[in-house]
């Protein structure tokens, strides 16, 4: 890897300060994506700011009709959380489906959404549940946060601090995983609740997206049959050695129906 300065601040303020002073600073928490990227010299930051030592960035609590999850909370903590399991079991199941235990023990929700890998699970989870992303500057609705492949609404030097997830009436996540990495070849979060009826798809396109036609149909009749004939066009979807665009388009339909059935 290239050389860079490494910092491990103890407070958010210090982190923001270091980051703003850096010519090309990057944030890191679990490092599950960033470390392999650095190792292959696919990134060349001037400074690396490790958020993992900042105590108040981690943790899970129920707040009114939402569950608030700190940015450096690991996938394993979300998956094992009694709060998440009881209030939003679909989100706990989603976290449990990420990678392998080693990744779940290190990787964090903040890292996942800030990176916004087009095949990551959390973007579909948060968009599908209508979550709000909190940063050190503002609150951003998930609808506005995920802007494209590895792109988010985060500004230069802005740090994700937590996500606030409204507790849905029902929700489920269905995923067709890459058999090795467990990234989503296609993953669909379906939810009905305070944020409306939502169908959010990851893995299929350049970024997470909602399927309006399915949402309208489910609004009227929340059943797999209601979306039976609704498909997304293959044009513009991802294609690689694991799945063609056509196959991904097909998977969106199947996974959406399976998620609806699972949500009950």
């Amino acid at each position, binding site marked *: 890897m290239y050389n860079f300065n*490494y910092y491990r601040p103890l407070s958010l303020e210090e982190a923001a300060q270091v980051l703003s002073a850096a010519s090309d600073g990057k944030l890191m928490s679990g490092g599950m994506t960033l*470390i392999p990227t650095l190792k292959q010299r696919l990134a060349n930051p001037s400074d*690396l700011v490790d958020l993992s030592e900042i105590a108040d960035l981690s943790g899970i609590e129920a707040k009114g009709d939402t569950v608030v999850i700190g940015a450096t909370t690991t996938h394993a903590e979300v998956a094992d959380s009694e709060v998440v399991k009881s209030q939003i079991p679909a989100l706990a199941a989603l976290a449990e489906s990420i990678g392998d235990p*080693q990744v779940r*023990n290190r990787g964090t929700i903040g890292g996942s959404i800030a990176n916004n890998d087009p095949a990551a699970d959390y973007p579909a989870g948060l968009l599908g549940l209508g979550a709000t992303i909190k940063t050190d500057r503002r609150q951003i609705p998930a609808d506005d946060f995920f802007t494209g492949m590895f792109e988010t609404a985060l500004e230069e030097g802005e740090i994700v601090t937590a996500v606030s997830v409204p507790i849905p009436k029902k929700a489920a996540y269905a995923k067709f995983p890459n058999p090795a990495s467990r990234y989503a070849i296609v993953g669909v979060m379906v939810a009905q609740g305070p944020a409306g009826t939502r169908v959010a798809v990851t893995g299929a396109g350049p970024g997470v997206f909602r399927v309006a036609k399915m949402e309208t149909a489910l609004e009227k009749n929340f059943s797999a049959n209601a979306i039976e004939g609704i498909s997304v066009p293959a044009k513009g979807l991802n294609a690689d050695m694991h799945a063609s665009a056509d*196959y991904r388009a097909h998977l969106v339909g199947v996974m959406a129906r399976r998620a609806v059935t699972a949500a009950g």
Partner: protein
Amino acid sequence: MNAHAPETAFTLNGRPVSVVAEPFARLANVLRDQLGAIGTKIGCDAGDCGACTVLLDGRQVCACLVPLAQAAGAEVRTVEGLAENGALSAVQAAFLAHGAAQCGICTPGMLMAASDLLQREPKPSEAAVKDALGGVLCRCTGYRKIIEAVMDAHRFAGTTAGDVCAAPAKGRAVGAAMVRADGLAKVTGTDLFGADAAPSDALWLRALRSPHARARFTLGDLEAVQRRHPGVEAILTAADVPGENSFGIYPDLKDQPVFAEGFVRYRGEVVLALVGERAAVEAVPFDDDLVTWQPEDPVMGVVAALRNGAPAIHGNRPDNVLAEGRLEKGDVESALASAEALAVDELATAYVEHAYIEPEAGYAQRIGPNGARIEVAASTQAPYLDRDEVARVLGIDKSAVRIVPTACGGGFGGKLDVSVQPLLAVAAWVLKRPVRCVYSRIESMAASTKRHPARIKASAAAGRDGLLTAIRLEADFDTGAYASWGPTVADRVPVHGSGPYFVPNVFVHSQAIYTNGTPSGAFRGFGVPQAAILQESLYDDLAAQVGLDPLEFRLRNALRPGQPTATGQVLEHSAGLAQCLEALQPHWRRLRGEAEDQNRIGNGRTRRGVGIGCMWYGCGNTSLPNPSTMRITLDRAGRLTFFNGAVDIGQGSTTVLLQICADALGLETSAFEMVLGDTDRTADAGKTSASRQTFVSGKAAYLAGRDLRAKLLRLANVGDTAEIDLQGGTLRIGDGAQATDIDLAALPVEEGGETVLSGTGTFDPPTTPLDEKGQGNPYATYGFAAQIADLEVDMELGTIHLRRFVAAHDLGKAINPSLVEGQIHGGIAQGIGLALMEEFLPGRTENLHDYLIPTIGDVPPIDIILVEDPEHLGPYGAKGIGEPALIATAPAIFGAIRHATGVKVRKVPLLPHRLLQALRSKP
């Protein structure tokens, strides 16, 4: 830089440690390089393989993805910390007892992942084990014994190594499921693999490889580059090779350069090597200062390579045909023309990567007076081939080369070719300094040989009576840029192409074709697994046409003792396919019945299918000599030493050969010390390939044991029934009052040493050359098998859920049933990968997340039936099992998919999107 702490402290296995290192140094490297904790392995350095799994504050993590700074103040536990006060942890003991470690490279990671689980759930379910160990890849075991061991670990609390590793009683070693002789080192993390040891002053070698599949290139001003990078001691190129700048398996086909000379033929070919301090050689950018490229259009795939006017890959093969094989028996054309049942089809298969979890690694140094000799320690399957290659490349005598195999973290054929050996030898020879090298995962996958992609066409015919009458099979194999084992594939496929059946009329033509692809070499089965997929599929077609059940059809045609094979060889004994099929019959009827019932009442979203695949495989080289020699010595002090040159790559030959030679001599396995695979100390046992070590080296071990036994008995002038006992320097022969005590120290020593008696055994299996029609006796014996696959197809997704395998194998005699099961499990796992997952694409799948191999969740329960139809030539009736375990699996899977859905496979692997497409285009 506020975090530039020179020192980081944490707790390692309960002991406080502190290291001076960059805060972003990764924990795996710090553990291995600075703290000497080499039990933690690095298989991919990218979080994909899990070999580096350790516990960080009690939870499993990949140490290769943890910056040192994040371990500050934490508790780190590695495999070295599992055994406490000399007692193994329960899970280590369970791994030994269950045979859960084969090569052992993944074992530390598996053990740590299991420890994470077991501290919270001492009696976990199978599902919990699969989840907890889901991030650690194993390429040898097929995971089943690992799952069993973890579930069973609670029964092993407080067990000592001595309890688990107790030697079988005297004379009872053969047939005993004894714990592998090298098992303790594997579960405690002390076994030394290629990357685990080197002289402390060794320089680091980094090979630079072509990013192009075909290109001309010009070297830059290398001296200038070296001057700009202090710490780089040398930049080696073809000009530095003292001897021949080429290597290759066949004496007349040394076509692969150690360093390319102005032209590269595949992506991954070595152009030059940087040697020096590790940090310095790693910091040199691989840019135009070193090499400038003129890429050319590569010739990819056999169709392109055989096209008229295709550029030649090698000047001496203008048609790009490296090698051909041919077999003609009877009159195939007439038989096909007059067929009552006729099946015609074709198949394409992909490159398959060996994906051993240990990347190629080793070191070399000059040894002996004046440094006149060279020693190369490396992970290998073929020390004597390595010796000859190194001698040739250095231009020195073979006797001046010593090869010391390290523990081998998986081979499967991929470590039969040299990799690091010539590079290290040249560097250490030229620089007169020790030099080490460890391939990165990407480098290993880009550079190493693969299973040959195949394009096969075939026709087969049978009579209405269900008897096979003919098969015609033509196979083109993509052998890539260099010969490697291409000719072996071309030779083996004709012999085996008609399957383990009596077929009166056979025509097979095979070709190994040069392309600009990655070199294809040896991979468990040498082309036979690819051909078997199509051949078995055609026989399923014929069975359906004549109205016979697939098992019944195979049983009717099974090759039986006394019937000639396609090469005209008559197997008089140990041809046990029929017994395998008969043993499977009750399972077959039950599972087929269950599947059909399930499909009748099901909703159609999933469909279940049950299929069968059969195989045979000749043990040893094809019509070529392949002797093995084993030696046992007894010295004045009563020390008994077994000199065994066969490399154990995880399959267990060290243990199997010990069992054989112990019983042949008449002493316990625990009586022996062992010297393994060092070309200075052991005789040539041949390479670990072609399922030959149990059969060939096992027979040599048997003969060595018998030889020494005869000499001992002669001392007391007693017959073969006498018992032998060895107590220190006293040898007791015979029983009670009849016993004779012999003081070994009083015997004359063999020339110059301490040895007073020795036994030697050499075995070379009898074969005859094949004539121009491929007729002859190419192998002394064959392994046979039949496997059932039971699975469900998700008709909406095209995915496969494997439910179960039932595997019946005729292996003559199971010397160690536990190791045999391990081979079958592992072979089936690789067969699953071949059938459903694995497709190497040069430049695109050179890692273990884009290249898919079976994980712990992908291998279903496997029921094993051992058929022991003794092979009279083999030791105690034994023959090989290594490759037979794999070959039947893919055909059984495809038979089951056809049973479930009617879809026939034409492109392998049958990935979900391919199966879905086939389901949709089905008439």
